[in-house]
């Protein structure tokens, strides 16, 4: 197979000049991408880079606005997932898309079961499945029920199903994100085996280690454009991370001067975690100290465990091991209400799913946390609630018609401000802000950044997560770096610059340069 590849370097799948726009957003602009048979090609990029749009264009979920797709140098039209399937393009997603209640064999053959006399021939199906599983070295029994298999095996079965149809191009969309390292190795073995048979694989993952372990080439996207295409041996991790994150040049001298004032004051940390963990599939045990008046950034790629870390402090994910001290006292936090009683606040990453109560009014969304803290009987009176709502709408300059407007009809930035108001109203000492500026217009972004600095100067301790490096460098006094679900380092103020952070995120750098 390798021989053939070297003889014919022309790619089997070629996407040229792909463009795709959604109302108000240009998701892809003039993106080229190519895939050879028998290679594993990593598609990398941060949130909003356009990876998933590109994949959806390729699999026919979205129709592209411009560009062409060539297979074996012949242009093809892919208008629906069925078309993609006909061209030999199969996809395996992060969540196993199989039926847990059916047997392994059925999951492999559902929809194209071998039949005799019009009825499904189970013997034949089980035998063919056994053959297929053995061929791909998947250790599962064809008659076992799928949910009795481990997630890794299920993922491998999903791959086997995809391959079993005449598949030439396989897209693996984060298949490894919920697996442990042994399981990942087994998936990799399978991927290598498929590569040997000439299948071209597009591999999407957030784990850098995995990219370097298994891939041949990398294409990096950023902000809907292709940054470049590289052979794996020619691109160091550091370069990769730099290319993924890019550089935003903004002048923020004004913020810098404010930041200087922010310094830890207390000796006793507000929050101290010793070996805290919410389970191996979420975040590995970590130590952490956070002081009053301090903004600590949590840097890392998407899926690196930064959200899981803060969730374990807040009790949103229950900690299974380790110790948590609040103001020096050992505390157990079992649920968010516990955390709130200890003056914590948590602005979740996913505003729509975990944040807003869409049909309720701005007023109700603002007071809900305080009301929950007070309990059922001590109701915040209407007048009081209106006073609070008006106060915070003014303070954060929330743009809403009135306080009775349902929050769902506000813009993203204003929704985020309402949720900030909700937490500020509880007067927290420790705030967790997970991506508070995502999907928000530039003006609001700066406002929120300023607000964060002000809050810290008032003596609140703030955990700040953002995908935008510059934003964090500007605001944070310290930064915790996460990689592959582990805390891998802490950077003091003196080290807060792009190259150091990116180097730490990339990590594991031997001597590629």
């Amino acid at each position, binding site marked *: 197979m390798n021989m053939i590849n070297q003889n014919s370097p022309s790619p089997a799948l070629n996407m040229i000049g792909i463009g795709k726009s959604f109302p108000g957003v240009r998701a892809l602009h003039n993106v080229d991408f190519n895939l050879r048979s028998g290679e594993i090609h990593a598609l990398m990029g941060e949130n909003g880079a356009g990876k998933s749009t590109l994949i959806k264009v390729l699999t026919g979920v979205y129709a592209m606005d411009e560009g062409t797709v060539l297979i074996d140098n012949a242009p093809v039209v892919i208008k629906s997932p069925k078309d993609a399937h006909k061209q030999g393009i199969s996809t395996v997603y992060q969540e196993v898309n199989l039926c847990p209640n059916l047997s392994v064999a059925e999951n492999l053959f559902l929809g194209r079961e071998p039949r005799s006399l*019009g009825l499904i021939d189970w013997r034949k199906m*089980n035998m063919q499945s056994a053959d297929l599983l053995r061929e791909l070295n998947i250790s*599962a029994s064809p008659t076992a*029920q799928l949910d*009795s298999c481990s997630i890794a095996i299920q993922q491998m079965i999903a791959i086997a199903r995809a391959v079993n149809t005449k598949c030439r191009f396989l897209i693996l969309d984060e298949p490894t994100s919920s697996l442990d390292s042994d399981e990942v190795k087994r998936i990799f073995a399978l991927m290598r085996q498929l590569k040997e*048979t000439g299948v071209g694989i597009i591999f999407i993952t957030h784990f850098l280690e995995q990219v370097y372990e298994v891939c041949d080439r990398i294409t990096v996207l950023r902000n809907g454009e292709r940054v470049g295409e590289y052979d794996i041996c020619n691109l160091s991790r550091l370069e990769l991370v730099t290319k993924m994150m890019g550089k935003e040049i903004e002048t923020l001298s004004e913020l810098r001067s404010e930041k200087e004032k922010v310094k830890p004051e207390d000796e006793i940390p507000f929050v101290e975690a010793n070996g805290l963990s919410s389970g191996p599939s979420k975040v590995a045990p970590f130590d952490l100290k956070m002081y009053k008046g301090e903004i600590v950034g949590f840097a890392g790629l998407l899926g690196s465990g930064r959200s899981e870390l803060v969730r374990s402090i807040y009790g949103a994910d229950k900690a299974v091991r380790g110790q948590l001290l609040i103001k020096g006292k050992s505390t157990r936090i079992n649920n968010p209400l516990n955390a709130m009683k200890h003056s914590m606040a948590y602005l979740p990453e996913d505003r729509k799913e975990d944040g807003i109560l869409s049909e309720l009014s701005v007023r109700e969304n603002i007071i809900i946390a305080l009301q929950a803290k007070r309990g059922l009987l001590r109701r915040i009176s209407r007048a009081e609630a209106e006073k609070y709502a008006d106060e915070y709408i003014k303070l954060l300059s929330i743009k809403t018609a009135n306080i009775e407007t349902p929050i769902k009809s506000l813009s993203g930035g204003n929704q985020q401000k309402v949720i900030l108001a909700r937490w500020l109203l509880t007067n927290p000492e420790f705030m967790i802000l997970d991506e508070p500026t995502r999907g928000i217009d530039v003006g609001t972004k700066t406002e929120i950044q300023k607000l964060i600095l002000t809050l810290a100067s008032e003596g609140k301790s703030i955990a700040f997560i953002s995908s935008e490096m510059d934003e964090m460098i500007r605001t944070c006094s310290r930064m915790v770096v996460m990689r592959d679900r582990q805390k891998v380092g802490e950077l003091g103020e003196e080290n807060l610059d792009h190259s150091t952070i990116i180097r730490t995120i990339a990590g594991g750098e031997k001597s590629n340069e």
Partner: protein
Amino acid sequence: MNIKLPFTKNALPPVTRKRISNTGILLIITVTLFFTLYIASTILFKSSNFAKYSVFFNLLNNKAHILLLALGLTVVLITGSIDISVGSVTGLVSMVIATMLTQKGFDAIWTIPVSLAIGIAFGVVQGFLVAYMEIQPFIVTLSGLFFARGMISVINPVSVPITDKTFMSWSGAKVYIPFLFNERKNGTLDIAYLTPAAIVAILVLILLIIAMKKTKFGRALYAVGGNPQSALLMGVNVRRTKFQAHVLCGLLAGIGGFLFTLFAPSGNPGNGVGYEIDAISSSVIGGVMLSGGVGLPVGTLFGVLINSLIERVVPLLGITEASWPRIITSAFLFVFIVLQSIFIGAGNKKGVSAILMQKIKARISAFPKRFKRIFQRKKTYPDK
């Protein structure tokens, strides 16, 4: 390149540790429960002849119509939907048949297509609303229940007896089973028999077993119930499958209504009240998961037999009030629903549910091997 190796028995892939599937456990519990109850009744109530063949077969004869309804529910429950209109449809069919025969003078043969048509009509409308309009199946079929119940009294608000000779001859027919008889004390033979209704029910059961196991439609039902999104991605037409399931359930309810009228030949406004509950509890006790995707028609048969047995045994305990069998059946339903919720909770790996689940599994795995072999399919592959 990968070369296909000739298949040899020695080269079997290493098999992951076999675990009993949920279907397996639920079925084992049900079958064990039925035989335990039956054997216990045989010992406890010697005078009521539970050891006789005829008594055993009467369990089915008396509940053939419920079996039909329960099979219909098995189908819709497996797709993750529900149909609670079946009892009222049964009542409607019986009233329509009685009115046709007694007041309109139709020929008995016409009652068959009309019964089926009524069932299918309900199935089609409800299926459309559930599958294509995506309305909660419970609300849709609750409306169906009230609609059918109301239609009964629109058609005829009073009791209508059936006197048609042809129909009564169908109703009274018995098919004796050769070699299965016991001698009565006075020397006559008590031969076990099946009613035509029971035979129809058994035929439908067999057809359904084959359809569920061996046709694309049957497997699509399970796939849709297991995970609709996955099923969609795997090329199953989820909406159509749900629609078909409801139509099939309606059809079976129509047949069930016909069989019920054979069993109790009169049209009565109260006919079929609460049968949907009997049908649901039979399915659930028979191992059908309310969350969808799990269950077997055979299990439903045992669910019906358990219900039938309870109804027969309770009076023997000296409890004469008619309400007790209902309470006991509901208690069984409760236990099984809670058991199922434990099964679902076990997926989370932690917490009480999972520990309970592990214990249950451990218990069942600890059965003597011989006992186990009866219930578990052999999982070996024949040589090529």
